[in-house]
Every structure is written in C-alpha cells, then in structure tokens.
C-alpha cells in the first residue's frame, strides 16, 4: 500500500513566483496513493526538513516526493532527511520544479500545470520504488601504475610506502622515463640522475612493488576495486632470471648502429641492449626489429657470448592477467615533431635539434661525454639559438596550449651552454617568459644576468643553412622593433609537449576521457584534478597536461593518496542502481552480454542438484554494473530490469502523462 507524502518547496520566491505551489500541493493531495501533501517556503531548511521527517514518522509514509530544485542540488539532502526519519533514502524522489519549470517559464498557469505533471510523474515513480541498499564490493588492494617515469615511480613508491601492493608497468626496458635523460634540472641545477636513480632502485627493490618493464596494458575488464588487467610482457629474448647484466652480449652484438632512443638518436646502441648504464632493471633486451638473428635467422653472437645461456631467441610475448583495485595512469609525454615547421628546416638540418637532444649533449653520460658538440660535425658551436614555443601556442599546428616547461628548460639550456662554452653566445627567442614557480623567476634572471644568456623577444620566421654550414636565423625583435638575423652554429627548438603515442588507445581501455590534444581528462578541472571519469582510475604527470618534475611528483603523490584512500576500506560502497536479469525468462540470446559497456553481464550456467547443466542465462555482476541500463533496453523479452529505473517505474511515469 502506497502512502506517499508530497512536499512542495517555494524556494523563497524562486518557484513560487511562477508556480502556484499551494495549487500543486492541493493537486498532489488528490493523486492516488498520496496521503500527505504540503508546501513550504524552504523545504531544504531545517524546519522544512523537519516537516518531511515528521510526516514520514507520523503518516507512516512509504515514499516521498519533494517538488523543489534539481535533484542534482538537494537530492542528497532530502534523502538524508528521509533516512533520518527511518525511510529508506531511495524511497524519496525529487520533482524538478525550479530549474526545469519556474526558472524557465513565465506563464503561471502553464507552469503550474507543468509542475503538477512533474510531481505526478514522480509520485507514480516513487510508488514503485523499492528500498535499496548500497552495494558493497570488495576491493583488491593492489594498484596498477602505468608508466615508469618519475610520476609513475613516485606514485608507486607512495602507494607501496602506504603498505599496499603496486604493479608498475613500463613500456620500455627500463624505468626512469624522460627524467633519466636530463642532464641537470631547473631551478637548482642538480644532477637529474643523481636524484632519480635512487628512486628507481628503491622502486625496483621495494617489497610491495612488482616491476613489469617492457610490458604494455593489453586489455582491461572490471571496474573500480576489481579491475582485471591483461598485460602483455613483450618478448625480451633474454632470460632475466639468468642474466647478470654483465654486458658480454651487447659487447659482441654486430648490429651497432641503431639510433639510441635514450640519447635522442644522437648516439647508437646495439640490438641487444640496455637503454642506459643506470637502467633499472639493469638487464638487456633484444630489439626484435634490428636483431640479425631474429630478422635474418643467423648470428647468435650474443647467445655465444653469454656464459649464463640467458639469451633465448624463442622467447614469446606473454599475456599476464592481474587483479587490481585502482589504476594510476602516468604515461607521460613526448616532444612534438617539429618537422611540420618547414620554416625551421622541416627537421632536415642536423644542427637544428630539440630539447632532449640538447640534454643528451649536455649530459656527462651522453654521447659527447657532456661536451656541447653539434651533431653535424662534432664542432663546438660558438653561437646557439634557442627558440621557444615551437608548436606550442600555435593554432596553425593545432596546439593552442602552452607547454609550460619550455621557458624554464630553455633558460637552463642557455645556462648549461654558457657554463660549458664560456665564450659562446646563447640567444633565446621567446614570446613570453612564464616562470611562475618557486625559484623560477630567479632562475631566469640568473641565466640572463649572471650567465649572460641573451633574450630576444620575438618570433623566428625562418632558419636556413648557408653553404658554409652556418644556420641563418631570421627573426624579429619586437621590443626593439627591428628584424634580427643571427648566424648560428646550432639551433635548439623548444618543441611542444604532447601526450605519449598510443595514449588514446590506453584511455579507451580504461574508459578515461581525453581532450582534443590527447591529454587525459580529469574528472573536474578544479576539484577533482587527479580523478578521471572512470572510477578508480587516477592521473599523474604529463599525461594529463604538460608538467615539470615538481608538479608531476606532486600529482603522483596526490594520486597515490587517492589510491590509498580507496584502499583504506576493505569494501567499496556503490550506488545500488544496477541491472538484474530475470533468469526464469532469459533465453540467453547474449545481446545484453555483448552490449554491456562494462562487461558486467556474464554467462551463468544454471545447474540442477546433481550438477547437470539445465540451461545458460545472462547474469549481471553487480560489482561491475554501473547502472546505465543499456542491457535493459536491448533485451527483447524484457527480462532485465534496472533498479531505480525499472520498467514499471518508467511505464507509470509515461502512463500518467496521458
């Protein structure tokens, strides 16, 4: 027996100005099943809520409709009030009389008529509501961190430090990411490797962290608390359990001219290689594209050299399934390929390099041993031009955004150059200097004032190579209001920061949104900058937007805190809006199973007492179901229903509008 209470809010004058609230309450009082109807100036106020609580208790209400503002505003408020009075909160519904009615209409009679309809629709619905209870899903207290750069490492270490297990997946053979390639870091100019490698080692040796390098996420099932992630462990062709990392193999490898990714193509590596000497794990993999044995079928020099017999050319990719409760995406960034800029040589000039290449030239572990020598002829460049905003803030190439880190690293580059080539000229072309960070502005000043880096405000319109090998840089000094031509020996472009390749695919696997530039979308730009729309998936580092190291580390720690917060409880409470299958009438056509965006509908075998298969039906995994109802509408025989939006409820809502 329905005993419904209706509560019409005036919202001060917000509703009452356009809607005759008393008339709505009077009309509601006559609706079938309604035993109590009242209107009040502010239902959300304490006295208003008290009215509701009191009516629930005194009239023994089995359901309530509050005609007020949008449920997005106050549904939690009123449901809490209902619960306090002993009514299951899901037995209270709201009719949106403000946003959907009084605020958008002027004609009082028409608005009142509409308000009565909206209330009646919800009365009909609420009569068919059932008490619902939050669904509790056990949480697998293991986190997956995707990406082994500084953000991923930091997140993994923080989670592991919080006592929870972490699986750290890295696409390349070593963790460390871009930070491992940097020579020094701004604004302190401390050695990047010196501060990073201890972290790398700690991550590798931490008992709570399982490192999976040379691996990629292949498939994702499940949902927050219970992800099932399939990880492809790419074939390394080296049995790391046997390998000691001695280096005999790569010393013997005849394929020696492969451009080193780590050295930004300025150096070479072998086909069996470790990316850099401090790599973690410090063990080699065979690059199957360049290995002579794997491509041509003969060689095997490394295998002969290996005394441990660790080389295995028959190695194959392996798919590993892991169960995790939360995910941190820390896939990082790449530099934009400036070959799209024809005016800067379209990538054809060897001495027009990008920031990473300069980092490797400046790095003591780099191909030049830390001496600044230009790629084309190994000469020390006497004049180096640095150009900022290469691609960034240029809508012509589809990048409207600021890459944020370039101002700082260009200043750093200028300094490093000046420190190494004291008599050289470092000229920076810039649009603006954005140095909003602790010690950042001071750093820029130091570059200019102490180290004599020359800053020219203006854009470079063209770079061309003169026959003597000089790079002629033509630009404008907009402050001086004149054209500038510089004869440079080397040009360093501050290419735009772009998300890592393959990021979209990964986002789709996890159900994470991304913007037009490919950066992952946070759940809310201000209030939920670490979360994503996919529950249980968090973001860290430059995959979300260009970030420098401190920001990446900060966000990584924030993501770790979110993960630890999630893992602090053994169970997750979920909205009980889930689908259910009527197994008596299900005929197992599997349309729902194939349609579910979450893989939440599964085959379920009904067996008799002796264990014989009677038939197979669809069954909804409540832990995975998010309550979209797609399966319900797909089911031809109406065998699935969605709690909170049942067929009966919707039917009655539509029917009462006749």
């Amino acid at each position, binding site marked *: 027996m329905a005993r419904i209470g209706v509560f019409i809010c005036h919202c001060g004058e917000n509703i009452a100005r356009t809607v005759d609230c008393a008339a709505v309450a009077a009309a509601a009082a006559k609706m079938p099943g309604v035993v109590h109807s009242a209107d009040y100036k502010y239902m959300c106020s304490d006295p208003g809520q008290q009215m509701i609580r009191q009516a629930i208790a005194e009239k023994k209400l089995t359901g309530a409709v509050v005609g007020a503002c949008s449920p997005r505003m106050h549904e939690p408020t009123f449901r809490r009030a209902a619960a306090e009075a002993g009514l299951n909160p899901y037995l209270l519904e709201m009719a949106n009389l403000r946003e*959907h009615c009084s605020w958008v209409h002027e004609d009082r009679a028409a608005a009142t008529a509409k308000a009565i309809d909206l209330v009646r629709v919800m009365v009909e619905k609420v009569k068919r509501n059932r008490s619902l209870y939050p669904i509790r899903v056990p949480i697998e207290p293991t986190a997956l961190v995707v990406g082994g750069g500084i953000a991923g490492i930091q997140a993994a270490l923080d989670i592991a430090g919080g006592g929870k297990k972490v699986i750290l997946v890295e696409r390349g053979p070593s963790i460390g990411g871009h930070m491992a390639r940097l020579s020094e870091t701004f604004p302190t100019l401390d050695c990047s490797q010196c501060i990073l490698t201890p972290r790398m080692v700690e991550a590798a040796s931490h008992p709570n962290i399982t490192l999976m390098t040379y691996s990629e996420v292949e498939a994702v099932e499940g949902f927050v608390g219970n992800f099932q992630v399939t990880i492809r462990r790419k074939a390394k062709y080296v049995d790391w359990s046997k390998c000691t990392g001695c280096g005999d193999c790569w010393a013997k490898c005849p394929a020696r001219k492969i451009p080193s990714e780590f050295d930004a193509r300025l150096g070479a590596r072998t086909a069996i290689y470790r990316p850099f000497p401090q790599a973690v794990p410090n063990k080699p993999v065979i690059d199957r594209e360049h290995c002579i044995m794997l491509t041509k079928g003969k060689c095997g020099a490394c295998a002969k050299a290996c005394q441990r017999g660790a080389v295995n050319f028959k190695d194959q990719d392996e798919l590993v399934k892991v169960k995790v409760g939360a995910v941190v995406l820390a896939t990082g960034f790449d530099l934009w390929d400036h070959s799209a800029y024809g005016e800067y040589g379209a990538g054809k000039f060897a001495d027009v390099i990008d920031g990473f290449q300069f980092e490797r030239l400046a790095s003591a572990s780099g191909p030049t041993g830390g001496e600044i020598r230009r790629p084309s002829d190994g000469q020390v460049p006497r004049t180096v031009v640095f150009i900022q905003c290469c691609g960034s803030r240029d809508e012509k190439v589809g990048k409207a955004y600021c890459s944020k880190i370039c101002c700082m690293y260009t200043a750093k580059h200028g300094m490093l150059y000046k420190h190494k080539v004291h008599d050289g000229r470092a000229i920076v072309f810039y649009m603006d200097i954005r140095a909003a960070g602790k010690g950042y502005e001071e750093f820029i000043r130091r570059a200019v004032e102490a180290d004599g880096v020359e800053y020219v405000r203006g854009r470079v319109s063209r770079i061309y190579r003169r026959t003597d090998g000089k790079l002629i840089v033509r630009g404008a000094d907009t402050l001086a209001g004149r054209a500038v031509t510089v004869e440079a020996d080397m040009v360093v472009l501050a290419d735009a920061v772009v998300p890592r390749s393959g990021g979209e695919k990964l986002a789709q696997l996890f159900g994470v949104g991304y913007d037009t530039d490919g950066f992952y979308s946070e759940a809310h730009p201000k209030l939920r900058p670490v979360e994503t729309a996919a529950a249980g998936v968090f973001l860290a580092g430059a995959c979300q937007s260009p970030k420098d190291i401190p920001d990446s580390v900060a966000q990584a720690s924030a993501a770790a805190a979110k993960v630890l917060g999630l893992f602090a409880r053994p169970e997750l409470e979920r909205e009980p809006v889930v689908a259910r299958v009527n197994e008596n009438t299900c005929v197992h056509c599997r349309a729902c199973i194939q349609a579910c965006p979450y893989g939440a509908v599964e085959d379920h075998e009904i067996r008799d007492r002796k264990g014989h298969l009677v038939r197979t039906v669809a069954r909804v995994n409540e832990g995975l179901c998010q309550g979209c109802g797609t399966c319900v509408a797909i089911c031809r025989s109406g065998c699935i229903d969605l709690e909170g939006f049942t067929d009966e409820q919707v039917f009655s809502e539509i029917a009462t*509008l006749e």
Partner: protein
Amino acid sequence: MAQTETKTAEAAAAFQPRIVAFVCNWCTYAGADLAGTSRLRYPPNVRIIKLPCTGRIDPLFILKAFEGGADAVLVSGCHPGDCHYTSGNYHARRRWALFRRLLDLTGIDERRLFFSWVSAAEGQKFADLVADITEKVRAAGPLEPANPARRRL
C-alpha cells in the same frame, strides 16, 4: 474564407503540443538544469522523464508516449564520446536510426520524433531545442486524429 483562415490560425495558436522527453541524467538533464540556472526561457510543453542514460531508453517508451496521446517525443543524451557510461549513447544512436525509420514508415514522421545531443554545458542549446521543436510540432498540428498508436477504447 478569411474567417476560416482566422479560425485555423487561432486553432494553431491555441494548440499546445504535448511533448514527452526522455533524457539522460548526466548530460541533457543537467543541460536543462543549466537552462534553468541561466534563467533561459522556453515553452512549457515538454515533460521530462529522466533515465540514467539514453542506452536505457527502450522504443517501448516512445510507443507508450504516443499511445497516450503525445504529439511528439524528444530523446536526448550525451554527445558521442561523452557518455557517462562510455557507450550507452552509441547503442541508443543505432536503435534510433532504425526505430525512426519504422515509425516514419507507419506514419509517425520526423516532425514527431526528435533526437538530440545536449551536454551539461549546453543550457542554451536545450532551451533553443525545446523552443524549436515546440514550434515545429505546433506547425505540424496535433498528431490526432491520425495517430496510429493512440488508445481508442
């Protein structure tokens, strides 16, 4: 003659279309909320029924609305790629692509059945949409007496 025309015009003006809207909770419902908070104006002819997602909307809902005498039905949800449930709206889009053909063939044509994507940020679009379809349905006139789905007992 002139008199008839006046009458028709009056009838058209007096005709208040009954429009039932099935909208998703995350985008269009919120878009309609935004229209409200922005104090935009639109005609009071639409009755919104909220569903979690356009994926939940069964063609039966639409038939039921027409059976009950609706002059038009609006179905609206998140833009492609924006679905709160990742793909409910893609499923819905296929369903409607076929269902509208069926209804059109049986006499409930495109002046009676509207589909739209309205995001939570598109309050203006929602207001414009409702105003526009109300006008269109008003111009098309009542679905009765030719409503093939109408209950007559």
